[in-house]
């Protein structure tokens, strides 16, 4: 636990009647990845824009790397990188022109700027696309140039707003590799995401936000413990063994086991994934053949359901009445 990279107290921002950020307290320690998890409209982008000095908070305060985002905005700007949710480079320009533009603005000489741009393009696998307009890039390449553009001067802290939304699994993995690489080099990363598994894979700590408020905070383990670790689905060769299988599973997993609509299948919400392997071993020892089994991660929906009592996608608040 080092010093704090980000600290906010009672941060608020409204747009008309929409309370986009409604009092957020965060304490993000330096180093590692901090995940902000929330559904559409939760206020993630608004919060990041305030932290990156693009938006004035209505109330509350925020310190980024020890500098106040309102009073010392320039000090903050020179130390952080921002990769916005939407295309944050000029799509009419080529990859190399975009990076050179930023390099020049950040004080590189023309020659050093060119070298820097070339190094970045190389590192992000974009060397071949250097002289192509960014609007002709694929989604994954575009995301990589977006991130590369935030690294022209190595920031102490980088904000990534939904860096993988809309990417295919391979491009998503590439972005994850980049994030891990940055962390290994000592950069603090704050990323927002709508995907629980992404937060789980990358983040050391996660804040779950909904309707502009932090509704849970902790490591992914802690969050999951509050929801259960997901569910186990098992399909048997012989449907007549189902009752016995149910008894065996319940014994090992120590949770309720539900018969599914399929007469040969069973499912259980599990709390401790360690027991799953043992339960399967126990089934085979009892002479019960399993043809299929699947371990489902708890979805963002399940986390939300558990934390808020409403599903992630559902926006109207009927409970407010």
């Amino acid at each position: 636990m080092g010093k704090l990279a980000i600290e906010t107290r009672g941060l608020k921002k409204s747009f008309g009647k929409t309370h986009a950020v409604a009092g957020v307290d965060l304490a993000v320690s330096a180093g590692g990845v901090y995940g902000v998890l929330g559904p559409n409209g939760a206020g993630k982008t608004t919060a990041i824009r305030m932290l990156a000095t693009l938006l004035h908070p209505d109330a509350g305060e925020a310190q980024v790397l020890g500098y106040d985002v309102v009073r010392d905005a320039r000090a903050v700007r020179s130390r952080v990188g921002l990769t916005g949710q939407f295309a944050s480079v000029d799509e009419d320009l080529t990859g190399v022109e975009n990076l050179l533009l930023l390099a020049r603005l950040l004080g590189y000489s023309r020659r050093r700027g060119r070298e820097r741009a070339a190094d970045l393009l190389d590192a992000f696998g974009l060397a071949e696309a250097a002289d192509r307009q960014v609007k002709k890039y694929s989604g994954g390449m575009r995301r990589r140039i977006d991130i590369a553009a935030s690294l022209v001067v190595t920031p102490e802290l980088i904000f990534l707003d939904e860096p993988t939304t809309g990417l295919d699994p391979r491009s998503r993995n590439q972005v994850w590799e980049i994030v891990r690489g940055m962390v290994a080099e000592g950069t603090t990363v704050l990323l927002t995401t709508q995907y629980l598994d992404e937060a789980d894979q990358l983040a050391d700590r996660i804040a779950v936000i909904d309707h502009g408020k932090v509704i849970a905070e902790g490591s992914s383990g802690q969050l999951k413990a509050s929801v259960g670790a997901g569910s186990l689905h098992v399909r048997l060769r012989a449907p007549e063994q189902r009752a016995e299988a149910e008894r065996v599973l319940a014994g090992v997993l120590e949770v309720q086991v539900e018969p599914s609509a399929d007469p040969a299948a069973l499912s259980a919400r599990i709390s401790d994934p360690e027991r799953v392997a043992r339960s399967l071993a126990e089934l085979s020892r009892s002479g019960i053949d399993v043809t299929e089994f699947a371990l489902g991660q708890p979805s963002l929906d399940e986390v939300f359901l558990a934390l808020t009592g409403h599903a992630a996608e559902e926006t109207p608040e009927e409970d407010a009445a």
Partner: protein
Amino acid sequence: MNATSAEQASAPVTEDALRSVLAGERPSSPGPVLTSLTFGWRALLKIKHVPEQLVDVTMFPIMFTLMFTYLFGGALAGSTQEYLQFLLPGILVQANVMITMNTGITLNTDIQKGVFDRFRSLPVWRPSPLVGALLGDVMRYSIGSAIVITLGLVLGFRPEGGAVGVVLSVVLLLVFSFCLSWLWTMLSLILRTPNSVAGVSMMVMFPLTFVSNIFVDPKTMPGWLQAVVEVNPITHLATVVRGLMHGSVPAGEIGWVLVSSVLLVAVFGPITMVLYRNKK
């Protein structure tokens, strides 16, 4: 779908390369002049990649010059040749003033995209993205002016002020246009869509250029309209450009144009910057 399969297949992000890139240096921040010029360079790159955007600076002036000279020239001044001597400096003014409108439309489009967020999050002198865009526009004014003057010379326009008069009048026009475009940057930060910026600009622009002495001598207009024409800054600008091109140097009027240029920036520059800083 855009990337070739070969480059998709290559392992794109290498750990070693990433590491060395992240160990980069931290150069010191450049001054406002350099950052503004760098943003100006961006505007030029955009002209290079999207040359279609020059349609307004080429088509407008050509159309207006030809239309007015041949449609109205004979009726207004007895002969097209004579009218051209009067009209061409005016058309030059109109073309430049029209081209300034594009500034607001481009800026508004830019702001809708995420790239402006990135510019605003850089530790550079805050007005530099705007100043740079306007500097890039100076290029457009120059192109437009060159087209009008060349076309005029081909059609028989003979400036008595010679090359010096022509160059001086263009320089003055560039200064005025640069200053006037702050009005459009302000508008583009207030209005939501590029279309509404274009609409409002037109509404300002048409009366401003037509209720002036660009096309006709105001002597034949009713008195109240003459009064309006008289206070229209475009009238003064056209008088100056006409004077310089035809060899007389209206010193008082030049002063008037310079003062109104400074006023335009002094009023709309700060408003633009406040709006820009607080843009959501």
